[in-house]
């Protein structure tokens, strides 16, 4: 493992068990240690290997004996039975919650959708109006020019709406991505309990 990979792996491990303020100090400590080892004649890989496994180091450096309780393991049969029996209750609640969540997404995305519809319609009306104004000009120049002007006005409004939708869509896409990631972490993050004590 290279120095950068080691530091990344260590930072990742520390993020789960150390306070944010400690992480920076620990990373600096181990980075300095690697560089000092390298100055002392160790190769980069040998220096990193000498320090050991980042996960183990993170625990030891924090002085944190860790008790991991995997919730998936050793589930009591009674709990399993209760989960099965209670499924009509909690299952429907979970389903309802999920649907409410999805409908929120849907409502949020309706805003850019409406913008897109307005933008598209205005632009189309503008273009059609401008084209047909040319035919109207043969009968009445005043009417034709007026219709061309109105067409351009609609086309301009359409472009504005589309620009607004594009900007808003980017923002909503970012928000959707963040919320989805947050939900994913909330649901699938490895649950663990860390017990600290003064050594």
């Amino acid at each position, binding site marked *: 493992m290279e120095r950068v990979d080691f530091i990344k792996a260590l930072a990742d491990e520390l993020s789960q068990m150390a306070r944010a303020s400690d992480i920076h*100090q*620990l990373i*600096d*400590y*181990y980075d*300095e*240690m690697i*560089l*000092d*080892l390298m*100055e*002392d004649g160790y190769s980069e890989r040998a220096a990193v290997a000498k*320090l*050991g496994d980042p996960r*183990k*180091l993170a625990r*030891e*450096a*924090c*002085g944190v004996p860790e008790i991991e309780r995997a919730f998936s393991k050793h589930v009591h049969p009674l709990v399993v039975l209760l989960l099965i029996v209670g499924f009509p209750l909690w299952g429907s609640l979970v389903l309802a919650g999920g649907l409410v969540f999805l409908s929120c997404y849907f409502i949020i995305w309706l805003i850019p959708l409406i913008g897109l519809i307005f933008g598209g319609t205005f632009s189309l009306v503008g273009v059609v109006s401008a084209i047909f104004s040319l035919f109207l000009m043969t009968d009445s120049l005043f009417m034709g020019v007026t219709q061309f002007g109105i067409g351009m006005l609609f086309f301009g409004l359409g472009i504005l709406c589309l620009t607004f939708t594009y900007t808003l869509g980017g923002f909503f896409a970012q928000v959707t991505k963040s919320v989805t990631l947050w939900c994913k972490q909330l649901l699938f993050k490895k649950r663990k309990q860390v017990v600290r004590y003064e*050594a």
Partner: protein
Amino acid sequence: MDSQLKKGLIEYCVLAYLQRGDSYGYQIIKNISPVIPITESTLYPILKRLETRSQVESYSREHNGRLRKYYHVTSLGLESIQSFLEEDWKKLEEIHDYIKGGNSGWSE
């Protein structure tokens, strides 16, 4: 050696080494290891604890284009060494004798 006892003794070794002059993490490990084997991960919480107790202070100094953290023993740290040598060590000897079963100074 019991790890808790070892950690306690390492603290005094670190303070004793720093008494000779300011030093940095890797140098501390290199110097102390022949007396008590110590790893990088063992030293960090010890230094942190000593710093929290104001027994050592740290400062950064540039070395080969990077910053290196140096540790300096404070007067509290020096007092701690004296206290260990004069008081704690006597207690440890009493405990040692008690464990060996040859001391009558400990009553029930």
